[in-house]
């Protein structure tokens, strides 16, 4: 099952080594983490040693070896967001969700993350809930995003 899906993704990028990171991103999007079985199969298909795949998986922020929550709430901590109070928002969400940044709530509903700039600096501070970007927040408005 996993092999079949990973096979399709590999084909999408022409089964070339320069597609490795993008293939892994698509696997991450599909499963919300990188399942070991998927990575082992990927290594065989592209003839890349598992050590390199593991190195890539742990080096880049986009990847996770642990399953993530249903939703990802991501606080932008770029410079513009920082000077407009991103830390306060992050603190608040940590308290509301009872997790530290990078953690997933016990009910597996939310994963709380930070990102270093999504390029919407003019509307700082920014929070991204799954794929939706929310601008001009303060800690109260940010907390309301997860109460909906």
């Amino acid at each position, binding site marked *: 099952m996993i092999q079949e899906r990973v096979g399709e993704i590999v084909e999408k990028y022409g089964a070339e080594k320069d597609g490795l990171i993008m293939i892994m991103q698509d696997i991450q999007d599909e499963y919300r983490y990188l399942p070991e079985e998927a990575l082992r199969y990927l290594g065989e298909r592209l003839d890349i040693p598992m050590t390199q795949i593991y190195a890539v998986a742990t*080096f880049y922020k986009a*990847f996770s070896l642990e399953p993530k929550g249903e939703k990802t709430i991501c606080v932008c901590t770029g410079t513009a967001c920082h000077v407009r109070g991103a830390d306060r928002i992050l603190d*608040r969400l940590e308290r509301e969700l009872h997790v530290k940044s990078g953690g997933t709530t016990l009910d597996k509903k939310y994963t709380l993350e930070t990102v270093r700039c999504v390029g919407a600096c*003019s509307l700082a501070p920014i929070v991204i809930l799954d794929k939706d970007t929310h601008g*001009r927040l303060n800690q109260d408005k940010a907390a309301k995003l997860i109460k909906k």
Partner: protein
Amino acid sequence: MRSLKAATPKIRLFMTLDELKKIKEKGLKRIYPDKVKFTIGTATCGLATGSGGVLQAIKTEIEKRKLDFIVSETGCIGYCQKEPIVDVFVPGYPRIYYAEMTPEKAAQLVEAVSKGEHKPEWALGKVLTDTSLIDGTIYNYSHDKVPLEVAKIPLLSDIPFYRKQFKIVLRNSGIIDPESIDEYIAKGGYFTLYNILSAKRDPASLVEEVKKSGLRGRGGGGFPVGKKWETCRNAEGNPKYVICNADEGDPGAYMDRAALEGDPHAVIEGMVIGAYAIGSNHGYIYVRHEYPQAVRKFNKAIKDARKYGLLGKNIFGSGFDFDIRVNRGGGAFVCGESTALMASIEGQVGEPRAKYVHTVESGLWDKPTNLNNVESWANIPPIFAKGADWFASIGTEGSKGTKVFSVVGKVKNTGLVEVPMGITLREILDDIGGGIMENRRFKAVQTGGPSGGCLIVDTFGPKHREGLSDAAPESVSFVTESLIDLPVDFDTLTDAGSMMGSGGMIVMDDRSCMVDIGRYFLNFLKDESCGKCTPCREGIRNMLAILDRIAEGNGHPDDVDTLVDLAQVLQDASLCALGGSAANPVLSTIRYFKNEYDAHIYEKKCPAGVCKALISFSIDKAKCNGCTVCARVCPEKCISGDKKKPHKIDLGKCIKCGSCEEACKFGAVVIQ
């Protein structure tokens, strides 16, 4: 040898000049149709303010009223503060831009326009003529019979935010539909490429032209683009690669995202011209995965360019082949560094290597590789369309052309501004940026991202000792200069202890703590250091530990000297620019704001009220009118007081989250 199998397009006859001209006509009809057209900015910043809902509301209202109107989308017009922005084109009228739209206002606007009316009270500005930068084509909007209320709307180019701007890179952004290649061609796009390829111009002469233009790389370092092209062109080895670096990692900078989302074909055309000059047939663009919209729009643009034969085999029948492959980054700041970026494209961990051999000689897969960033590539078509002399006539002696800055932070008008090099900080921050938010005081502007620094733009006067008691030692430094009148170009910023970087300009006021900013950047770099070389890995960690203790009120008198010593090691011994420049933010804050370090170390105070360990919250009895908002928002329920009577914070329970301060409308919550 690498092949770009997946990217090879279908065989197609090449595009001719006649065809290109026909497409231009088609594109012009799209931009200036014979019907009413509503255009909504739906770049990331637009969407973050709700332009998606505005777009939907306009479509719904048009459908409901069975109107024969066109709805179109566009990229970022720069004035992000005023998003969502909608512009309305009515044949025979000036184009009017409406700011801060909501779904409700948008529906009313559709209704008004359907009755032949306007909403001048919501207007940001109007446009009477459009001139294409590339071919000089002018479109005049008729304005003979406009009512007085429309005549009174200011010209968009006259409002302070736009008056001093000069757009080369962002020439089409916010004007054309970035997903329509026809509209790009309508603005003279791909004609420059046609002129070069059909005349079979000598590639070496193209390199000379770029050298003559004086264009310097816009990614940060400011290396002359023409020189880079020349070295790569002359380097031995085949195939050669050209890369567009769109891994815009500097936090606070988003010009590359806006350019990719607003005018992707400008980058493609620039890359094809560059590849022809250098002698390369394979291109890559490396885009941050945090920019999903940019990735999607660029992929669409590549597909459309292939369909028209503007990428692929035998472009314009010249015998020249070129194609581009898109690579998404994995979320690592260091991948903006050229050697790390190339390692990442190869599917490796993004670790830089020492550059004894330059990438122009041995880069991607050990082949000669020319890398420029988005903004540099977007400058290429205008340089060839209008000539190197034209480009060199703009800007300063050492820095030619324009630069796009993202003016953000504590400034009134946030957005993207493109200005000629050499403009002063004051013009950017005061005239364009509209001054500081909430009438506070300018303190600093941070440029160059984590490799840059904080420049003082203060007008406090020479003996500022805010936050220090009289008992503080006389040696404690104070502000002696302000750089607000500094002309901005590559060299002046470097001399001032910062750098151009990719163009982020984060404005800070008296509520931003400079120790905290130094700490912020080291924290950033600690996470982003790849860990390969010791000076960077350990140096940053140790500098951060010192700043942490200063911020917590445990600083030692010799801490600042130790920071400067560590900074020197980082500069001298790091493998790549990430480590080499990592200390810049701290060094610049020490240079200009040593008084704040001293206040933290000697007085155990954070004058800006940011460092949590050194501050406390209280309520100013004189200002508090007992509205109870603070007590209601306090997550710890530690604010008490009767209605209409001054409230009080229980400091024993206060976690210093700042909710009360954000909620209070009377400025009664005081941080000390």
